[in-house]
Every structure is written in C-alpha cells, then in structure tokens.
C-alpha cells in the first residue's frame, strides 16, 4: 500500500493541530493563571507528532528536495501544493510561538499569535481534506471527507490533550479534567456517529462491506477502539480517575490506532470506488 506515508502524515498532523486547538482553548480560558500553551511536555509532543508527520510526507514525495517541485502547482491551484504550503505556514507559526514564549511565565500577550497558529492548523486540516475531494472519486467527493478529517483532528486532539493534561496537578485540575473528559466523550461519540453515517452513505456507491474486500474489518476495528476509549473515559468519570498517566496514554493510543485504521480504509475507498470500478481488489 503506497499510501502508508500519507496515512501517517495525515493522522499525525491532524493530531498536532487538534492538540494545539484544545491547548489554545485552555490557554484562552486560563486568563492570568499559569501558562499552559508553552508547557515543555506539550511542545515536545506537538513537535514529535508534527515532525514525524512531515517526515512521513517526505517519504511520499520521493526525496525532500522534491518539495520545491511541488510548489510549482500553486499557480495552477493544485490542492496538493496548497497542502504543502499550509504545512509550512503552520510549522513556521508554531515555531515562532515556541521561540517567543520559551520559558516565559506571562504568555497572554502572545494569545493573538497562538490564535493565529490554531487557525492555521484548522486551515491545514481543511487543505488536507481538499486533496481528496476529487470529482472522479465518488466516495471521496463529498462534505463527508471534510467532516471526517475535522472530526479526526478533534478526536485525536482531545485524546492527546487529556493525555498531556492528566500529567498536570494544577489548582483547578479536578474540575477542568471532568469537563474535558465529558467533552472528549461527546467528540468520540460524534465521531462514531459520523463513521456509521458516512459508511451508510458510501455503501450506496461502493462495495466496502463485500466480504472479498475485507474493508469492513478496518471499519470494525476503528469503531471498537473508539468504543473502548469512550468506555474508559466513562469509567474515569465515574471513579474520579484524573491523573492516571497509563490510562490516558492507552486512551490516546486507542484513538490514534482507530484513526490509522480509518485512514487506511479511507484510502482503500479510492480503489474500490474509482469511476471505472475495474481496479477492485
């Protein structure tokens, strides 16, 4: 499967933008309290995810220097070129924010920059989704692609945010953790609904539940991993488990695994639902 680098690129970058999105909300809400968005743990995780994703995308480009060839498509409006530009803009803004807020305790004055970076992350998610809304691939050419890609970013973001947040022991820790867990349950549940609705819709166009394609296995894995994550979050809420590093790491890995499975399934849709339907495997 030649799309494996793209599977990792899209999922890792969506995780980065999603975690930053929730970290931004947390930062905006915390007003004059302790800084959050420039915490060392958060920044390390964001950069590990983002750089891993970018590295994966280079594998798809053949060699890193090919990125300059890709920029030529900007003048013709190639969605792939615009995606590369979005990655560069997001990475640059994140770097500037990190440098300016490095080891500072008063970072509220950089909130505009943080907001801009969060917005650039959302634009990047949209740019990624545009790559796949091709009129010649019916299973991709709908608002479902954009919705799913944003839902993925939110799910990965909130799971990653909880994982990082569970390591904090702040004053308002217990209260805020409860709220974030409820938000996470809501997002993961919505994602499950989106997956079911999308596959129901796409089922009219393609044969992904054909026993010969094995596509249904990937979809079931995705749903089961999300169900496990939701169940663990409900248990955490019931039993007031807010700082179990192991538990929240496991939840994040479940959501991450679920998204990898979902993305492989998404790429396979092109093969089984292309216009000719002759490349069916």
């Amino acid at each position, binding site marked *: 499967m*030649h799309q494996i680098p793209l599977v990792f690129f899209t999922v890792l970058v969506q995780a980065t933008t999603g975690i930053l999105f929730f970290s931004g909300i947390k930062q905006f809400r915390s007003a004059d309290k302790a800084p959050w968005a420039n915490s060392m743990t958060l920044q390390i995780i964001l950069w590990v995810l983002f750089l891993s994703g970018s590295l994966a995308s280079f594998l*798809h*480009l*053949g060699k890193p220097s*090919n990125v300059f*060839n*890709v920029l*030529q*498509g900007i*003048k*013709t409006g*190639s*969605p*792939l*070129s615009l995606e*590369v530009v979005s990655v560069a803009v997001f990475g640059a803004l994140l770097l500037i924010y990190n440098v300016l807020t490095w080891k500072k305790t008063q970072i509220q004055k950089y909130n505009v920059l943080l907001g801009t970076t969060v917005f650039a992350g959302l634009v990047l998610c949209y740019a990624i989704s545009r*790559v796949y809304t*091709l*009129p*010649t*691939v019916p299973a991709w050419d709908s608002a479902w692609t954009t919705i799913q890609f944003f839902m993925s970013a939110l799910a990965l973001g909130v799971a990653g945010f909880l994982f990082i947040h569970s390591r904090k022991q702040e004053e308002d820790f217990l209260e805020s953790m409860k709220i974030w867990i409820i938000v996470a349950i809501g997002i993961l549940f919505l994602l499950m609904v989106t997956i079911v609705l999308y596959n129901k819709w796409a089922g009219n166009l393609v044969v992904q539940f054909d026993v010969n394609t094995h596509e249904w296995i990937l979809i079931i894995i995705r749903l089961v991993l999300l169900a496990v994550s939701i169940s663990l979050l409900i248990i955490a809420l019931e039993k007031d488990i807010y700082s179990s590093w192991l538990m929240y790491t496991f939840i994040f890995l479940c959501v991450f695994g679920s998204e990898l499975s979902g993305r492989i399934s998404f790429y396979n849709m*092109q093969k089984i639902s*292309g*216009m*000719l*339907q*002759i*490349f*069916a495997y």
Partner: protein
Amino acid sequence: MKEQYGFHVDVEKCTGCKTCQVACRSLKESETGKFYRRVYEYAGGSWQENSDKTWHQDVFAYHVSISCNHCDEPICVRVCPTTAMHKDEKTGIVLVDHKKCIGCRYCEWACPYGAPRFDSQRGQMTKCDGCIDRLNKGEQAMCVTACPLRALDFGPVTKMRERYGLQDEIAPLPEKKYTSPNLVITGGRHARSALSKDGTVLNKKEF
C-alpha cells in the same frame, strides 16, 4: 493548440485479442503489468422469463480498448502539484515532464480512466503519449498500427468525429462530463451506456 488529437475505438470490430496492449508495451518497454493501453472485457446478461412462461437469454459481451483519452479538461493536469503533467501545445496530447514529476501518484488517483501509471523503477508517472515521436515522423500510433482488426484509429479528433460519429460514452467507462475525453466510439449492438449497471468487467485481475 493547432489540432487536438483523439482515439477512435470500434467496439463492434474489437475481438479483445490485446495485440494493441502487447504492441504498446513492447514499444514503450514499460515494466511488466503496467499497460498504457488496456482492453476491458465487459459482459452481462441473464435468463429472462417471457409472458408466456418461456425463457430467453440476453447475454452480451464486448471489449473496450482504452488508453489515455487526452481529455480537453484533464483532471490529471489540473491536480498535478508540479505541473509535470501537461498538454502538448501542438497536438493536445497529455504528456509527463519527467524533469518535474516526483511520482506522488495524485494524477493516478484523479484520472477516471486509470491512464497515468506509476513506474516503480523510475519512481515517476508514465502514460500513453500518443506515440508522439512516431507522429512527428509521420507514422501512426503503435497500437493503431498493430491492431489486426483495424478497430483503432488516432488523429485530429475533429476528423475522427467526421469519420466515425459522435458517440463518446460506453460502459464500463465513466461519463464524459468529468474530463471531456477526446474519444470516439463505435458502439455496436451490445453497447451499454456509461451509467449502465447491466454488466461487469471480467478481466479486472489483468490490471
């Protein structure tokens, strides 16, 4: 552009011998299994019950030989992030500039005809170039020359349409609305429309 070139495929004449495929591959030396021209075997039909309780069958089968259709609105050109995929100014033939192509395979996803093929040895895309070198020497495309049934033709598409008519859609190909292909088809009595679900491609594994 001086003259847009296009293929004519006579489905009535084509017997599915695949000489065009073999000739093309021999000339272009493309790697095993990567055909710039492909012959789809499309078939369907079943037994039907008549009103008097007797039965008849409506089985049909035909072959469609397809390579790149050098479309008027080629989506491969539109989505290419490097502008490597482009239309020749003189003939409108869609070509790959190998100095620019990075082998991202975006064109392969986008093309509804499966025309761009990935050459894993080069790490780049390749495709039917309409035998442009042969055309420049006044010769015909290799697939056309090789066809023993004379079911293929290639030339200025206006001439193809004058000679063979205006039909340009047939199952299992997609509707023309996506890319405006420069393709002329002679359908024959079994031909089904692009939207038809009557049949299925029988030789999927060949591709």
